[in-house]
């Protein structure tokens, strides 16, 4: 077990930076999720730790070892791939034993450890099957068993649940978390699924365009997003952004004004981007003027899309017991002032002193 440390790490393909100046530390025993849309550089970052991609710049450390030029097989890391990457010609037992066999571990111990790993993942009855005879979920468990069997310093997981159906994904998610907490192995977990990230990670590192946007515990990330990208990427739907300007004690928008709440008293006069989660908006008798453009009923809640006079659309989350407005009707959207966020209108960065 070991920490993983990225120090100003970049990966460039010609002029394109897949990972740009990444500084990030994964603590010993931590499960850190790399989250971002496709092409954000999260998989490249993971593959650099594995040694499957070269580091163009910066230094990458596992434990106390600088691994920039270390061969993948000598890094003592195990990876779980989205496609499972099992050896199709080998039985489950042989697949799990493979890493041990490469380390010249004698037969008796090898079989013993493979069986232990298999039992941990409930595969002990499938040892003689070939991967082709297993379901997707079973294959993924074989891949996990192959990763844990040699007790590596770091687990690397590249969207391991993407090929599973929704129900199995939830179950396997729980299994992986339980396994990681029990083994205490440092884990880097790549996903584009924010629900996976929120439920699995000790911390989440959000990436976009090759750059790290924010790294924080899931709840902090949700409550104090560092910029508008993180604010809108996390949450389903993401945070509503409202362009406004501070004029005296008022926040003026094209659809009406709001009083500057005490929490935001530090923001400078001028342009500002306000942020509000759908659950901190409600339809009432005062607030911003808007027209209902879409009503989505999801059972436990209803999401009401309201178009402001300036053209911005806000999503309001309502409980199932609240009165649903009709499409096309004019409404007033009120904002809970204590949960209003403020971002720099030009850079999108969070304005400290807000919230």
């Amino acid at each position: 077990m070991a920490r993983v440390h990225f120090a100003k790490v970049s990966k460039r393909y010609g002029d394109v930076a897949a990972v740009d100046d990444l500084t990030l530390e994964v603590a010993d025993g931590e499960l850190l999720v790399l989250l971002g849309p496709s092409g954000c550089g999260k998989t490249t970052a993971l593959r650099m730790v594995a040694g499957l991609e070269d580091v163009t710049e910066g230094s990458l450390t596992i434990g106390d070892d600088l691994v920039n030029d270390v061969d993948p097989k000598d890094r003592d890391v195990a990876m779980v791939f989205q496609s499972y990457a099992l050896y199709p010609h080998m039985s489950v037992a042989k697949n799990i034993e493979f890493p041990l066999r490469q380390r010249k571990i004698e037969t008796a111990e090898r079989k013993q450890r493979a069986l232990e790993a298999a039992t941990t993942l409930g595969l002990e009855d499938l040892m003689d099957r070939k991967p082709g005879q297993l379901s997707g979920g079973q294959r993924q468990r074989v891949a996990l068993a192959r990763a844990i069997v040699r007790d590596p310093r770091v687990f690397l997981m590249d969207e391991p649940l993407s090929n599973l159906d929704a129900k199995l994904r939830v179950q396997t998610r729980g299994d992986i978390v339980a396994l990681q907490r029990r083994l205490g192995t440092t884990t880097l977990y790549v996903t584009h699924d924010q629900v996976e990230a929120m439920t699995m990670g000790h911390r989440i590192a959000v990436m976009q365009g090759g750059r790290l946007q924010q790294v924080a515990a899931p709840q902090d990330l949700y409550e104090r997003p560092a910029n508008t990208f993180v604010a809108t990427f996390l949450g389903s739907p993401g945070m509503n952004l409202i362009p406004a300007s501070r004029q005296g004690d008022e926040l003026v928008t094209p659809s009406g004004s709001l009083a500057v709440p005490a929490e935001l008293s530090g923001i400078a006069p001028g342009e500002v981007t306000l942020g509000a989660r759908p659950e901190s908006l409600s339809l009432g008798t005062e607030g911003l003027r808007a027209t209902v453009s879409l009503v989505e009923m999801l059972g436990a809640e209803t999401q009401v899309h309201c178009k402001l006079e300036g053209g911005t659309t806000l999503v309001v989350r309502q409980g199932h017991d609240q009165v649903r407005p009709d499409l096309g009707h004019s409404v007033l959207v009120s904002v809970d002032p204590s949960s209003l966020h403020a971002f720099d209108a030009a850079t999108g960065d969070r304005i400290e002193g807000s919230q």
Partner: protein
Amino acid sequence: MRTRATRRHKDWALAYALLLPGLVIFSIFTFWPFLQNFKLALYQNPPYPGLPSTFVGLSQVGDVLSSVTFHQSLISTLLFVVMVVPTGLLGGLVLALAAHKALKGMAIFQVIFSSTVVTSVAVAAVVFGTLMDPVVGLLPWLGLDPHPAILSNPTWALPAVAVIAIWQFLGLSFIIMTAGLQSLPEEVLEAARLDGARAPTMFFRVTIPLLSPTIFFGLVVGFIYAFQSFGQIDILIGSQNAEFTHTNVLLFYIYRALSVQNDPGLAAVLSIVLFAILLSVTLLQFRFLERRVHYAGN
């Protein structure tokens, strides 16, 4: 319901109408001669053209199968196949592995390696014939005096034509192996690297098993190619050469039976034998080898 049935009839009619030209051509030039061949095998022909043939039933088949010439031909054919197929497949694999690198200019080598596919048998035979020539060839140039000349030498004539066949099969073998290597699942190879596999293990325990469907396909294609080799032998050895008995492979024997011996009956029997061998070898390969083949995703 009625309209749906009518539409289905129309679909069938259209399908058959589109298939018809192909079926007609195949019937005239493939199926009909194929059936005629079985009939020919039952008739014996006098050695002079124009005289009536006599129905002899299966006795001609028995005569041919028990003849010394046939046995010699069969042995030559098998030797030829054994020389060509494994060497050609292995050579193709080695070339494919060498060219399977993301290096600049590798496409040039890929073109060169696969070029033997588009070289005509006649050109290849003439070039190799010149290289093997006892006067202007490679050996005299190296100061050696091959005597008798390679192509008239009972020991070396068959290996010499096998070399040309191997050279020509290399291109196809290279293309097949390259296609196989390119379709290997990248993540499985990466998993093996992370699992600690060294180069020999990577190759023999991961790459080769993953490549086995390709190798199997190459084997089937190679067998058919080798059994059907003819041009090199006809051009370099011919029927006139005293050593032709050593290079009298089945297809060449069939050709000679018809064009030199004017014996369609003999040629028909030999054709059926060749057909039976190719069919059974292919079926046997599928029956026994396919079980040891690992298809990706399985």
